[in-house]
């Protein structure tokens, strides 16, 4: 049994951390004067330059669970984890920039659910807004819980002190500076992650003897688990059959499940990320936002997945003495980043790396809170409880929702600390609701015949299809219950990930098919005139011919795709 590493912060490290908190709060205070109305608070007054929204777009998704989780997957699955970036993010980001952003930014919608209201009807918006609001606030609580638990283990700080301090800091800077504050701090966090993790990866890779030596060292990792020699250092070569790789997935499930349904469903419809792009200062800047994010995004595997690959290679080489041992006797993959931090970074650099980790937890929470307060205020409060109030009333409500949202997050963190299963259960339910979502948006944006009834009942059927699939499917080594198979386990999968990807494919297809069918059977309630700016065929395309080449979304999008294909070929 290897113990969990302790991180000993020196005086300099505490100084670095406190300086960071001071800047975060300072940004909030400095923005207070700009928050004159609800448009400033919820949409940053649509005044943010593209490079800022672009980095915030990337950073909002780069919570610490993502950083820790990707490093863990790097150790558990090897380079194949990069599919979460190269297959599961970049194509969807390019699609959002070129095809979908004109409708989000160009229509009068102030949020993603509001787009559904304009394009379809009230019930479709309500379904999306309510599930999204619940989901973001619980994610924020999970983020908070994960941060406090990690700090408790690593630096032995008190769990509730961690919760209170981080919740208070996030509360203050959003309360004061709204979305702009969250976006500015996300950009700061982006640079913290790069500055904190680059020396870590550099040192760990040097210690492993460089990339070629690392590949050698990963061979026994693969062969000792019964896989082909290159499994941990190649991204595509072992995706022929689910049995060939530790993820338990074949190439079709990977490309369709992750690359199409889940990835497009997240990047193109999740208001948490889309909100950043909608805060941009022009249509051109809004469309460039996901493209600017895509460039660092495709290089991030080097910063977050590579450490996991290095750690598992060291672990194998040292005879199981590098990573701490988890309760079930396997290496504790979630401890990859903390272990490397403790081993390679001396005081000073450690402060930067540690602060980066804390920063990404807090901005992960802040991202959820800003998305929540907007959807709550515009899509739930204004539509169902108090329409036609003054703008200052909604600004007040946004601030109130921030306080309320953070209190609920703390409550969710409490639940998570008491009952682990509740969070698994909630994430499962959110998975059911999210899986079919992209079908609704795709048909809404590109097929003017799609009707409100079609969209709503299609979405509900997609969710039901996901639940039904879950009740029938079970992956190897799991018992029927929360893992699936509670109706009758008749479909078996090699891994839970594979089961998840296929659930998404089934839910999406059900929603897609039924939305078309029901739309054809129901009457259109919106005329072509109503749908102008909301549907592809009825909207004039934004012109960009007169702009510099690097400001043209289509051209940059194509370049990004070429770059990502080259990356895939290099690490085939």
């Amino acid at each position, binding site marked *: 049994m290897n113990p969990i590493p302790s991180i000993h912060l020196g005086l300099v490290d505490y100084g670095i951390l406190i300086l960071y908190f001071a800047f975060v709060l300072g940004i909030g205070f400095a923005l207070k004067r700009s928050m004159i109305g609800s448009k400033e608070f919820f949409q940053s007054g649509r005044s943010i330059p593209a490079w800022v929204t672009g980095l915030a777009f990337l950073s909002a998704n780069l919570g610490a669970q993502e950083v820790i989780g990707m490093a863990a997957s790097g150790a558990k699955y090897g380079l194949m984890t990069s599919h979460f970036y190269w297959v599961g993010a970049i194509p969807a980001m390019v699609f959002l920039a070129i095809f979908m952003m004109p409708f989000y930014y160009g229509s009068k919608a102030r949020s993603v659910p509001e787009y559904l209201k304009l394009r379809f009807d009230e019930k479709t918006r309500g379904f999306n807004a309510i599930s999204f609001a619940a989901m973001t606030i619980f994610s924020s609580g999970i983020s908070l819980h994960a941060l406090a638990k990690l700090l408790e283990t690593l630096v032995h700080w008190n769990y509730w002190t961690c919760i209170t301090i981080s919740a208070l800091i996030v509360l203050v800077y959003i309360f004061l500076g709204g979305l*702009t504050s969250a976006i500015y701090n996300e950009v700061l966090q982006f640079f913290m992650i790069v500055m904190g993790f680059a020396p870590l990866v550099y040192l760990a890779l040097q210690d492993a003897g460089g990339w070629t030596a690392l590949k050698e060292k990963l061979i026994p990792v693969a062969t000792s688990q019964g896989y082909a020699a290159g499994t941990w250092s190649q991204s595509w070569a072992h995706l022929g059959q689910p049995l060939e790789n530790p993820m338990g997935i074949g190439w079709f499930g990977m490309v369709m499940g992750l690359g199409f349904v889940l990835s497009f469903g997240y990047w193109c419809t999740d208001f948490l990320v889309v909100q950043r792009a909608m805060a941009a200062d022009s249509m051109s800047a809004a469309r460039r936002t996901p493209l600017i994010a895509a460039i660092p995004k495709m290089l991030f595997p080097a910063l977050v997945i590579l450490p996991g690959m290095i750690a598992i290679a060291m672990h194998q080489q040292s005879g199981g003495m590098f990573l701490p041992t988890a309760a079930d006797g396997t290496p504790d993959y979630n401890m990859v980043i903390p272990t490397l931090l403790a081993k390679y970074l001396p*005081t000073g650099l450690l402060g930067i790396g540690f602060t980066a980790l804390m920063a990404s937890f807090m901005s992960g929470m802040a991202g959820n809170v800003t998305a929540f307060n907007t959807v709550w205020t515009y899509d739930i409060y204004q539509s169902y409880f108090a329409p036609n109030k003054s703008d200052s009333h909604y600004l007040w409500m946004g601030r109130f929702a921030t306080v309320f949202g953070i209190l609920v997050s703390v409550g969710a963190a409490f639940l998570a600390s008491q009952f682990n299963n509740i969070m698994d259960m909630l994430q499962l339910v959110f998975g059911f609701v999210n899986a079919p979502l992209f079908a609704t948006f795709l048909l809404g944006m590109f097929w003017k015949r799609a009707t409100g009834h079609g969209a709503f009942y299609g979405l509900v059927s997609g969710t039901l299809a996901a639940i039904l699939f879950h009740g029938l499917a079970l992956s190897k080594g799991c018992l029927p219950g929360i893992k699936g198979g509670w109706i009758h386990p008749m479909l078996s999968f090699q891994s839970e990930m594979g089961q998840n990807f296929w659930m998404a494919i089934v839910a999406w297809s059900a929603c897609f098919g039924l939305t078309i069918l029901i739309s054809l059977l129901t009457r259109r309630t919106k005329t072509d005139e109503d749908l102008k700016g909301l549907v592809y065929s009825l909207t004039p395309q934004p012109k960009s011919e007169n702009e510099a080449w690097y400001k043209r979304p289509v051209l940059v999008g194509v370049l990004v795709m070429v770059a990502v294909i080259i990356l895939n070929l290099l690490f085939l």
Partner: protein
Amino acid sequence: MNFDLRLPLGLIFTLYGIILVGTGLLSSPEMIRQTLGQNVTLTWGFVQLLFGLTMLFLSRKRK
């Protein structure tokens, strides 16, 4: 109107750069051993300082 984000970015990384350069100069042999015999703290401090100063310069230039 919002302030230019490059100003706080420039300030914080200039300060971090100074802190790291200082720590790097005062590094004990043990700390250097931890970073595989090279003074990575010092080098990385200079990188952050350079980044911070560039951001400060750009935020000034705009006005």
